[in-house]
Every structure is written in structure tokens, then in C-alpha cells.
């Protein structure tokens, strides 16, 4: 039994259409892996299989040796898997503080309390303050998320996932829609993540991938084509053909 995430023979098909084929994948504590691949390669499907939004057709997902492949979404969050969303689904009408307080309360098992103010839980408040400080969000604490700039929203997105104290963090296109000028907000935030956290980044932006990832997995047509260090991947002719070539050629 080893620590981290081990995936063996993970497959998923819709009807006759295979969108994930026999995927073997490991993510150890402290890893910073990126998952890349052309559109429709099955990156989002893979992420959804990890979070439990989809159930696999075959294969197993183990977290620290425990099979979590059949657990539902809520149970996987409890087991330690969190994911940020590609398209923002934050609570637009709630403040930044409330957006972060909610996952903290859920994680602490306090969400069913009815006769105590949500903002009167000293421990939860301290945790929210610390999280906001980590991502420099304190000045926006009482701002409606819907009124924030997009780059800041992406930071809230990451903070919400971290508030769940995950051991595996999946970042689904963390920089999507962020203006290039604000990209450093995202890379800085990723660099500041806890060292022992396992991070899987799903991203289109190659510059960002090469800046933050220490290993890259290339997914094509639902199967892993190759896995390696960024330099090996950049030099791999098949990857250049299939993916990098078409985008950067």
C-alpha cells in the first residue's frame, strides 16, 4: 500500500463510445502533474471520474490504498479529493467570505446546525481568514463574488477547493478566461500551494503548464499517449505532431 492516488485500468464509455480507455495513473503526495491533450481527448471526463461526478465502467481508483471508485461525489470530497471548475460555478450572489465559509462548514460537519449563526463559529472564521490571507483575498471579503474581476474569481475558486483540505487537488483549466496580464495571479497561487498536496492541472495554456508542472501526462482519445518530464514531452515528436504542433506550429 502506498500513499497518494493510484489508478489502474480506468475505463468509461457512453453507449459504444469509449471516452476513457485503460488509464493507469499515479499521483504521489507533493506531485505537480499536468494533464494535456487536444480538445475532446477526455481530460474533463477523466477529472469527473476522479471526483465521482461520473462512475467508471471499469478499473479502480485507490486513494492511500483504499478503493474509492464507487463512492459518490460527497464521499470523495470527504476522502480528500477536490476539484476546481473550468467554468465558474461559484455562488455569485454570496460574498467571498460566505463562499469560503460554506466548504469549511461542510468539511467540519457543521452544515446541519440550525440555531447558531453561521458567522459565529470562531474556529471556522479563523480558518476562513487564514485562507483568504493566503490568496490575498482579505480586501474583498465582503464583496459579492459576482462583482469580482475574473482573475480574482479564479482565486476564490481555488480557495474554495483548498478549504476542503484535500490531499488531491484537481485544477481544471485554472487560467481559463483570465486575461494574460493577470496570469501571474494564478501561477503564484499554484506555487504557494502546500508542499505535500498532490496537484493535477488540466490546462490548455502551455506556457502555464511548463511554468508549474514537474511532470506532464498527454491524453489522446481517452488513452495516455506518453508521460514524462516537461522537457521530454516538449521534445517528443509524437506529442509535437499531435498536440503542440497543431497549436504552436
Amino acid at each position, binding site marked *: 500500500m502506498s500513499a497518494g492516488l493510484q489508478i489502474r485500468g480506468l475505463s468509461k464509455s457512453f453507449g459504444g463510445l469509449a471516452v476513457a480507455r485503460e488509464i493507469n495513473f499515479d499521483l504521489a503526495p507533493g506531485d505537480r502533474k499536468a494533464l494535456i491533450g487536444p480538445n475532446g481527448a477526455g481530460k474533463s471526463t477523466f477529472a469527473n471520474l476522479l471526483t465521482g461526478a461520473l462512475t467508471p465502467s471499469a478499473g479502480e481508483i485507490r486513494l492511500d490504498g483504499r478503493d474509492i471508485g464507487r463512492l459518490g461525489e460527497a464521499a470523495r470530497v470527504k476522502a480528500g479529493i477536490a476539484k476546481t471548475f473550468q467554468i465558474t460555478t461559484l455562488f455569485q450572489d454570496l460574498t467571498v467570505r460566505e463562499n469560503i465559509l460554506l466548504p469549511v462548514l461542510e468539511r467540519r460537519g*457543521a452544515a446541519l446546525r440550525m440555531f447558531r449563526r453561521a458567522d459565529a463559529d470562531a474556529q471556522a472564521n479563523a480558518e476562513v481568514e487564514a485562507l483568504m490571507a493566503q490568496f490575498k483575498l482579505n480586501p474583498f471579503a465582503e464583496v459579492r463574488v459576482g462583482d469580482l474581476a475574473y482573475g480574482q474569481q479564479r482565486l476564490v475558486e481555488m480557495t474554495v477547493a483548498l478549504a476542503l483540505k484535500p490531499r488531491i487537488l484537481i485544477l481544471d483549466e485554472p487560467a481559463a478566461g483570465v486575461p494574460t496580464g493577470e496570469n501571474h495571479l494564478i501561477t503564484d497561487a499554484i506555487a504557494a500551494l502546500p508542499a505535500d498536496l498532490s496537484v493535477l492541472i488540466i490546462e490548455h495554456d502551455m506556457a502555464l503548464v511548463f511554468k508549474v508542472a514537474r511532470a506532464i501526462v498527454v491524453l489522446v482519445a481517452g488513452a495516455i499517449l506518453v508521460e514524462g518530464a516537461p522537457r521530454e514531452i516538449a521534445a517528443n515528436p509524437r506529442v509535437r505532431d499531435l498536440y503542440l504542433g497543431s497549436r504552436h506550429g
Partner: protein
Amino acid sequence: MSLIPRDRRLRDLAILLGMALVLTAAFYAFPDNLAFATRVIIMMIFVLSLDFVLGVAGVSTLGHSALFGAGAYAAGLCAAHGWNEPLLGVVAGAAAAAFVALLSGLFLMRTRGLTLLMLTIAVTEVLGELANKFSDITGGADGLDIVMGPILGVFKFDFRGQVGYVYAACMLLLVFAFLRILIASPFGLAARGIKESPARMRAIGAPVYWRLVAIYTLGGALAGIAGALSAQSTSLVSPAVFDFQLSANALIMLILGGAGRLYGALFGTLVFMSVHEVAASVDPFNWLFIIGALLLAVVYVAPAGLLSLPDLVKRQLRFSR
């Protein structure tokens, strides 16, 4: 840090005190209209319960009268079988409505949108038909005539409706205070989260379906209280409590005032029922002209409800400056 919650608690107390004052003032200002005022108060409780389910948690329903009716029949049956202490009837009404909400919620909360709207209507219609059909128990289409005993064995309902008014007013204050506390609680915050984004709630580990069932059950209990009070104050329960019109009217009152913040429920109910009382006594079809025009005006001018009007005006003024 610790000052803020205390401040908020004071503000909540001040609001409750203000409501109590208004209710008292109405008691002395309209001594001859207490029956109508009691109906308004009971409807306020009903619309408040709808506000929690629909305004706060975002569950679209056109079948809230199913829960009102369950509460009314439970209270009515209690009274008809000799348990005519009113508070007991309210507890029974709340419990019965919560039970109906739980049972139907297990099924309803799996759906949303038009399907949910239609299914909530269907549940109400089925209950209405059952009330009609099992006339041995429910009195059928004629309904149940009930006689209430004194509240806590002390306060007898009087002909002028004074005790009934005070009784309903106290219930309104209780329900309002309960909802204020609930909405500020972690459970209430999670309910708002579900309205904003169910997908996100799932992603942060909340069992959304079970949470919705809990919300619906709780809202059902409050609607049941309104139903029980209605049965007790009119001494009658008939299948009319399951009318689609009642659900639709409650929805109109809520959106008219502004959903999701409790005051809207109170204000919308007061406006709707007052306009109805005045206009319908003149001519029932004039009433439809007036309410129809009012509804359209609200939707096109202030979609967030009448209570959003001051904000709208303020914003307009700021822009024009």
C-alpha cells in the same frame, strides 16, 4: 469581532419588537376587521414558509397548498376527535405536513424546472381528491366543522376574534424569528448555496438531495402551522385547502413582495390581500384587472419584487446625477 454578532442579535430583536408593535397597533386600529387581519397573518406564515423553500433554497413549487392542507386536516381531525386544545392542533398540523413533505420530497427533490412544478401540482391534486373521497374521515366535500377549546385551557376564542388574532400574531412572530435564525445559520447558508449553484454544493461535499429533502420537510412543517391556524380560526376544513389557486396566490404574493428575504413575504401578502379585500368587494372582475396589471408592472419594472423598488429608485437617482 465579537461585537458584530451581538449587534446583529440586537437588530433582530429590534425587528421583532417593531413587528410586535405593528401587530398591536393593527389590533387597536381595526377592531372590526380582526377576522380579515387574522387571515392576513395566517397567510403571511404560509408565504414565509414558501419563501424558505422557494426564495431561499430555490425549489420551484406550485404545490405548497398540499402542505397547508395536510396541516389543516391534521388540526381539524385532532379537534374533531376531542383533542381541541389549539396548540396541540398546531403541533399535529406541523408534524403531519412535515411528514407529507418528507414523503413527497423524497420523490420531488429528484426533479426540477417544469417537471417539478407539475409534480408539485399533481401531489396537491391527489391529496385534494383523497380528502374528497375518504368522506368517512374527512367529511368529504362538505369538510369538517370543528369546535376549538381554549388555548392552554385558559384563553377562549371569542366572537370578535380578539383571541384568535393575538394567537395568530404570536405564531407569526415565532415563525418569523425561527426563520431569521435559520437563514443566518450554517443550514440556511447552505440552503442559499443550493439555490445559487447545486453543482458547486455537491463539489464541496454537500449531499444536495438530502439537504433539499430536509429543507422541504422543514418548510412543510411551517406551512402546516399556517394550515392548522387557518382551520382553527375558521372552524372549518374542506378540500378547498388543497386548491391550486392557494399555491398560485402564495407564489404571487411572495414574488410580488420579493423572494428570499422574508420581509418580501410579509409585504407582498399585505399588499395582495389588502388590494384584494378592497377591490373584490367592489367588483370581482375589477379585482382581476387590478391584480393582473399589478403583476405585469412588478415583473417588467421591478422583477425582484416591490421591496426592491427603493433600491431601484436610488440607483436611478445615482445614475441621473
